[in-house]
């Protein structure tokens, strides 16, 4: 029987569409999400190819190498800067380094920060939330009260406290940001596990003989994680912003690391004398956060089940 059946299966299955495919299609119909993806694409490209794009080493102090001053304003040849001057399209920073190269390398760091903290927070948050929602009772109570305690503090304040305890540094800042964002994910996963748990297909799996772990990881979680995608994308933006804030305060990335927040913090007193040194890192942070927010909003709309039958 399979011999005569299989070719047919393959041929006709081409028309079958999974829920993910529908989501993708809907996502690409939204202009704002596309803009977000384009911006993220540029960011990822820059982050990966920073060593080839950057005209200078981001750590290299240019004293004695070129004839440049501290905090020199941008010099762009096509915009009328004398061609005998070295070109620095975002100017020179307070330690006589090329600002443009540092911004490019900063993209690397920011993306790593965003993805690593959110991944860490999502994994822990999902496990905690899933256990709380699935098993309920006192387990649920203990986990969720713990999460409530974390949520009771303002996120950044708590992160500052954690970094102060652990000691300043990029890794500690990442840990702090991840811990602070766990409760949001745990709550989301718990809520959606609670609703999926009651669906008939879970009962069906139980009747078929599935044990609790099978039910939780194979049936419930795959159907409960959609809201997490949106929250995770928006969470990357928050994480980047928080990391920049911690670095700005001197608690995150330490000089000379080319991190946007710390670059901003280092030159904050020169806002009026050398505005380019705070303008470009600030702009970079803003655009990155905007990109993730646009994608997150687009995903939220694309995954919205209420729109499931509109505009396939």
């Amino acid at each position, binding site marked *: *029987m*399979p011999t005569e*059946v299989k070719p*047919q*299966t393959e*041929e*006709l*299955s081409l028309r*079958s*569409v*999974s*829920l993910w495919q529908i989501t993708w299609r809907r996502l690409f119909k939204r202009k704002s999400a596309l803009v977000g993806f384009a911006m993220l694409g540029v960011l990822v490209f820059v982050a990966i190819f920073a060593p080839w794009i950057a005209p200078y080493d981001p750590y290299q102090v240019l004293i004695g190498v070129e004839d440049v001053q501290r905090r020199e304003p941008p010099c762009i040849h096509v915009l009328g800067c004398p061609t005998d001057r070295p070109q620095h399209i975002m100017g020179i920073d307070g330690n006589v380094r090329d600002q443009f190269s540092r911004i490019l390398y900063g993209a690397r760091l920011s993306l790593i920060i965003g993805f690593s903290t959110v991944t860490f927070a999502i994994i822990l948050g999902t496990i905690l939330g899933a256990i709380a929602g699935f098993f309920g009772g006192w387990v649920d109570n203990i986990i969720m009260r713990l999460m409530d305690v974390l949520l009771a503090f303002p996120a950044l304040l708590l992160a500052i406290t954690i970094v102060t305890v652990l000691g300043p540094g990029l890794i500690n800042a990442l840990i702090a940001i991840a811990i602070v964002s766990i409760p949001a994910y745990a709550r989301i996963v718990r809520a959606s596990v609670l609703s999926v748990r009651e*669906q*008939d*297909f879970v*009962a*069906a*799996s*139980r*009747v*078929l*003989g*599935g*044990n609790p772990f*099978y039910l939780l990881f194979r*049936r419930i979680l*795959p*159907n409960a994680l959609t809201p997490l995608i949106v929250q995770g994308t928006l969470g990357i933006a928050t994480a980047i912003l928080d990391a920049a804030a911690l670095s700005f305060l001197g608690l995150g990335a330490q000089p000379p690391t080319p991190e946007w927040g710390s670059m901003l913090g280092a030159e904050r007193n020169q806002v009026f004398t050398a505005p380019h040194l705070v303008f470009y890192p600030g702009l970079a942070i803003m655009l990155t956060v905007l990109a993730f927010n646009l994608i997150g909003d687009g995903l939220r709309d694309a995954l919205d089940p209420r729109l*499931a039958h509109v505009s396939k």
Partner: protein
Amino acid sequence: MNGVAPLLQVHNLKKYFPVQSGIIRRTVAYVQAVDEISFEVYQGETLGLVGESGCGKTTTGRLVLRLLEPTAGTVFFEGQNVFALKGEALKSIRRNMQMIFQDPYSSLDPRLPIGEAVMEGLNIHRIGTPQERFEIMLDTLAKVGLEPYHARRYPHEFSGGQRQRIGIARALALRPKFIVCDEPVSALDVSIQSQVLNLLKDLQQEFGLTYLFIAHNLSVVEHISDRVAVMYLGKIVEVASREELFHHPLHPYTKALLSAIPIPNPRLKRERILLKGDVPSPIRPPSGCRFHPRCPWARARCSEEEPLLREPATGHRVACHFAEELAH
């Protein structure tokens, strides 16, 4: 059918759901969803379980499969107490007891192609090789009238009737002996209902299946059942063979239900028994006979003494003090 050991024996089954209130979630009352019911289902038959919404039919079905833990009582399946089993023993008994759900939309995992869904039970129980499971799946799909190429499609690509047939295939893939059908056709169009009912009947013949068929539609129950049990407010009020129940109902509630079946003949006059009021709350059920506040024949004794399920005629059990008097 007497003398044969029943496939499923339910004895004094009871399920009370606690009602909690206040900050400390104190239990203030109990919803008496199923209250001490007993019945049995014999090999190869279909027992119809009817009653209006909220009378505990679905709870009964779920208790039998141990999707819910009972407050008290036992369910014996092939001589084994379902509620005493754990781990592997429970898993292996589940191979033989399956369920078909009411809502064909929420009973299929939206992220699982339906072939996978039908194979799920085979995978859980590790039956045969993957190739054999695949063949069983295709074979089962064919049995319920679906094509092999459907296997890779997702639930949202199917209609309600097709989904219900997928649900049937999923239950059938393990080749169980006993299936609880929890209102399998009430969510479907009338035109599809008979199709699914006939499919269930055909499969019963082919595989020697035993059904506990839960429904609120009496015509559906009449079509498919061999015996019928009528539930009212958590109690079984009458059990009889289909012919007995539909032609000589003894319990006033059954009579009222039967008189409510529409007859497609406008000239035919008949006596309608109209029940007054609503079903009382299962949190505080009436004293004595639970039906007495709505019963047109209620007497003083009905509100004082609870009628037991007794057997005035062979194979016909009823819980009414005055069943014999009302028989005429």
